[in-house]
């Protein structure tokens, strides 16, 4: 195999992988406009399943709860994740650092089913001991903050790694107190990462099924929980329409979160952000 052949093979395999990633997304968008109840048998173009969504009270209610949960947990995760990312990249060694980075970062990979059952058992034990928290939006938000913080911390940490520490040191040398350095120098410099981290946490929260199923109560059903209960029974044309809307919504969020980073090199500027 010569160089030209191997380049061609590489291109072909990459295109195959990209096609693989996008085929299901494209198929769900196309079938959401299918008039037929049979979902995969195409009859003709229709937007009736979108109209049906507007009259589905269960879905509308779940959407509202999901958005509320996502907003609260993304806010909490951004605050905690900024602290954690800052500590991990700027504090050097301190007693308990290994455990700190271990428990902050483990939720990135920990199977959701484990985090779901363990947090539920914590909430149940707390409720038995001190009468709080009730299983509703509060428990979902606390659980979502716990798994989304690590993602924010990673984004913040990689941004901090690219910022020259001497800027912060200069501020300290000029007499700024540590808190002033953080709020007046560091925070403005990492602001884009905070926005990306917030949006990432928001979309992860909006999407979570497994952890939410464990920690939510009967009155606080989120959108993925409703979707899952419907799709377990098979294909559902309404879910195709809903899925298309979610893909569109989250796609816009992801574009907003990464646009600056992704096209930094196209405006002749030095690339400063790590892609989320």
């Amino acid at each position, binding site marked *: 195999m010569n160089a030209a052949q191997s380049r061609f093979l590489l291109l072909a*395999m990459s295109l195959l992988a990209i096609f693989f990633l996008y085929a299901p*997304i494209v*198929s769900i968008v196309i079938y959401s406009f299918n008039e037929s109840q049979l979902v995969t048998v195409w009859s003709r173009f229709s937007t009736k399943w979108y109209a049906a969504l507007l009259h589905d009270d269960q879905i509308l209610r779940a959407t509202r709860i999901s958005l509320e949960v996502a907003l609260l947990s993304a806010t909490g995760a951004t605050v905690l994740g900024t602290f954690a990312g800052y500590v991990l990249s700027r504090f050097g060694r301190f007693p308990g650092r290994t455990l700190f980075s271990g428990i902050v970062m483990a939720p990135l990979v920990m199977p959701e*089913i484990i985090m779901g059952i363990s947090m539920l058992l914590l909430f149940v034990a707390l409720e038995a001991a001190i009468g709080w928290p009730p299983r509703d939006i509060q428990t979902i938000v*606390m659980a979502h903050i716990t798994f989304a913080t690590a993602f924010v911390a990673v984004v913040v940490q990689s941004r901090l790694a690219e910022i020259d520490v001497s800027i912060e040191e200069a501020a300290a040398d000029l007499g700024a107190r540590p808190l002033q350095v953080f709020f007046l120098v560091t925070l403005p410099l990492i602001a884009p990462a905070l926005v990306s981290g917030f949006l990432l946490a928001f979309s992860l929260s909006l999407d979570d099924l497994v952890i939410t199923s464990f920690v939510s109560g009967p009155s606080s059903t989120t959108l993925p929980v409703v979707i899952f209960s419907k799709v377990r029974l098979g294909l559902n044309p309404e879910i195709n329409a809903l899925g298309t809307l979610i*893909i569109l919504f989250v*796609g816009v969020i992801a574009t907003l979160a990464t646009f600056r980073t992704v096209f930094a090199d196209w405006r002749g500027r030095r690339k400063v952000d790590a892609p989320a």
Partner: protein
Amino acid sequence: MSAPIFSNAQTRGFGRFLAVAVPYGWFLVFFLAPFLIVAKISLSTAATAIPPYESLVSWADDGALVLTLHFNNYKLIFSDPVYLIAYASSLRNAAVTVIFTLLLGYPLAYFIASRSAKWRAPLLMLVMMPFWTSFLIRVYAWIGILKPNGVINSALLWLGVIDKPLDILNNQFAVYLGMVYAYLPFMVLPLYAHLEKLDWSLLEAAGDLGARPARVFREVTLPLSMPGIVAGSLLVFIPAVGEYIVPTLLGGPDTLTIGAALWNEFFSNHDWPVASTVAVALVVLLVGPLMALQNYQAKEEQKP
């Protein structure tokens, strides 16, 4: 990067304490403590009560404090073949997922890393975009593609390649496909991060010295990107062992996984102690890979 930046007395203030204590406290309470509770409840036994398990500690008639530990749950999951099969098939699913995400993800990561700076970030975003998009919806979409009158079968029937629909949904094949699909971005990202840092002049040098592309790849590129392969494999393997959604939506009636076993014990049988025992056994299984990942990340941090 790991050297203390502000080592002077200035930063040993209350602010520094809070910055460590707030996230530390949160994760001790919401991440670490729950594992102890899971371990405790795994030693209990189910009861018709709220919450549905017996307390480990009780008062005997004579006023003595009695601690009752049940090891039956552990005996159960180590003797009932259902659990052993579930563990074995979860490990197999995760291993197959690692192999195929690597085979599919490596060329893609290599391709992106070898583009000019201008194209790398947009291409990487193309790979990461599905990760942002609803996992549940994307897995669900495969049902429409794989079912007997779905996209693939309709196309193949129409083309006359097959004369009856292929059986590709609700079986092990569909589970593998869905898992590889779901975890591909987790493999591509760390691979890309290492390939991007690769010194391409080394590859050119090998080529100039007469090595064919395959040999350059085998003897130069592959060893240099090994840390990325290790990181990507761990990032895929660990969550894949506990995967619940993919086997449930795409698997068949005979698909047994540890995720589904835990879920069913919890939600269908309401046996919280057995569900906890399954969780403890899964965590024990993952301690090795988790430590490996932590060590690896610590080592990466120490690099200049």
